């Protein structure tokens, strides 16, 4: 009999008590239902899972599916794909998302493990801290991204999904730029004034262009300098030398603040990996520098994400 399995456990209820299957709160039993349902759907939607059974056992409320090494490995590989937002299997993604939402939502204590051979992998933290599991949209592959530099009057900030609205000073066209809450707060002081921002423009088939915030510039000169670099220097055959020299110019002036702003322009999944690598090579000796640590670590993550 194989001992390989995927286990989902409710360890403690919202009052911190151990779970007894014979005596559960409504909240706990609802959570149990979600777990059983999700696990059943995972088994159903994964090929070659005939004959696999689900066990519900006491000692925490544990819902598990056991199978042979190949079957459980398949579950785990599919799971890894979903965490990396690479899965196109809608039903599978939905099941794991249900589990994810459960973990995030209520105050019960959970565990989630894959056991293959002698190896037990705890995936609870991964599930809880990952971005909301979504099916990778096949259409996304056709989207084109371009970094654009926009100036205009900031006429609105906010919304349930944070965004800012910029109105062109020449015509009355207004552009909506999606952003994070923190970023919306950053531009607050510019409300009803002229603002200089960079944003990622996404153009996809049959859709209007969409914008995502990159950075805001207090200094118009810096805005122009960066725009010039992106439009001109990056298009040259020796762009990587120009990139290096540009970064070097900030270091020479000990201008880490603006170097950080410059590097932000490149932190996007659409960025050519050779550009990202050149930045990582240049900043290798600044890995621990307090001003550059975070942006470098973000760039490294973006770079590694692309290698797949």
């Amino acid at each position, binding site marked *: 009999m194989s001992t390989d399995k995927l286990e989902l456990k409710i360890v403690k209820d919202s009052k911190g008590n151990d779970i007894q299957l014979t005596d559960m709160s409504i909240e706990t039993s609802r959570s149990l239902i979600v777990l059983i349902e999700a696990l059943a759907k995972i088994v159903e939607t994964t090929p070659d899972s005939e004959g696999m059974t689900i066990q519900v056992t006491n000692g925490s409320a544990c819902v598990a599916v056991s199978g042979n090494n190949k079957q459980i490995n398949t579950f785990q590989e599919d799971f890894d794909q979903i965490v990396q937002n690479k899965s196109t299997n809608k039903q599978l993604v939905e099941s794991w998302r249900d589990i994810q939402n459960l973990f995030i939502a209520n105050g019960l204590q959970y565990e989630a493990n894959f056991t293959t051979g002698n190896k037990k992998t705890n995936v609870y933290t991964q599930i809880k801290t990952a971005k909301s599991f979504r099916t990778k949209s096949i259409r996304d592959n056709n989207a084109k991204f371009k970094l654009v530099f926009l100036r205009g009057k900031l006429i609105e900030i906010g919304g349930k999904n944070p965004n800012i609205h910029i109105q062109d000073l020449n015509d009355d066209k207004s552009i909506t730029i999606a952003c994070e809450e923190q970023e919306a707060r950053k531009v607050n002081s510019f409300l009803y004034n002229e603002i200089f921002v960079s944003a990622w423009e996404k153009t996809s088939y049959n859709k209007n262009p969409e914008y995502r915030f990159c950075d805001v510039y207090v200094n118009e000169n810096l805005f122009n300098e960066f725009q010039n670099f992106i439009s001109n220097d990056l298009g040259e055959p020796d762009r990587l030398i120009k990139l*290096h020299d540009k*970064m*070097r110019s900030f270091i020479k002036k000990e201008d880490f603040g603006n170097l950080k702003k410059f590097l932000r322009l490149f932190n996007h999944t659409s960025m050519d*990996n*050779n550009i990202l690598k*050149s930045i990582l*090579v240049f900043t290798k000796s600044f890995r621990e520098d307090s001003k550059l640590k975070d942006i470098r670590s973000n760039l490294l993550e973006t770079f590694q994400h692309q*290698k797949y």
Partner: protein
Amino acid sequence: MKLEYTKEEIQEQLINISSIDTSSNFAAAAVHVNEHGIATHAGIVICYNNDTFLFHYTGQAILMDKIDTINEWYFYKKLKIIDTSLIEAFYYHCKIIERDALPKYGFYFGGSFYENGQYFSELGMPEVMTCVGFCLNVILGFLEEDVFFEFDGWNPLAPNEILPLGGGITVGDFFNRFFVLKNNFTESEIDEFRRNFKRITPLEYITSGFITILPITKVDIDKYISLLDECLKCNVLKLQGKVCA
């Protein structure tokens, strides 16, 4: 000792620059071999956008030579640790080093690297290296890792050891000439140098091209080094129109 590569596989992957395949980008460790099949010089072969180069330090200058201008015998091994999708970045990393670096010739292997044309040594050591050291510095600067070769596995040279510079110059002689006559270094810097004054041969360098797990240790290299030696000698015999066992 079970090895991952057989002699045949090594033979296949040691390629003569005269038959270089430019159909896709790559970076490779390369060595020059003399008529006895001994590797005497190290470099990096780069194939980028159908152009091929030998990037190397002669002890006098850093050169980015076009491969079709080279008449000597060189063999290369493609480096798996440098991703083929990143050759544009690697090529320009080398171009910047060519433009900005100013190494001096010497047998220092203390853990340093070229990053963006700047020589960076954790211990603040000056820019002193051999042709092999130069290659290791270039490669390490490009890797995300902190260590490429684990230098601890190599012992420092003794003062009476003779260096491969011709004229029977010993380590002691070299030290005296380099440090006392030409340059200003502190006592502790000179000590640091002595401790890290090592010789990593071009043969050891080309052997490392077959090892993909970092850091590369002397133990790893010793596993394959005699096979590499045999293969290089065999290749040279073939070039000379002779038969190889």
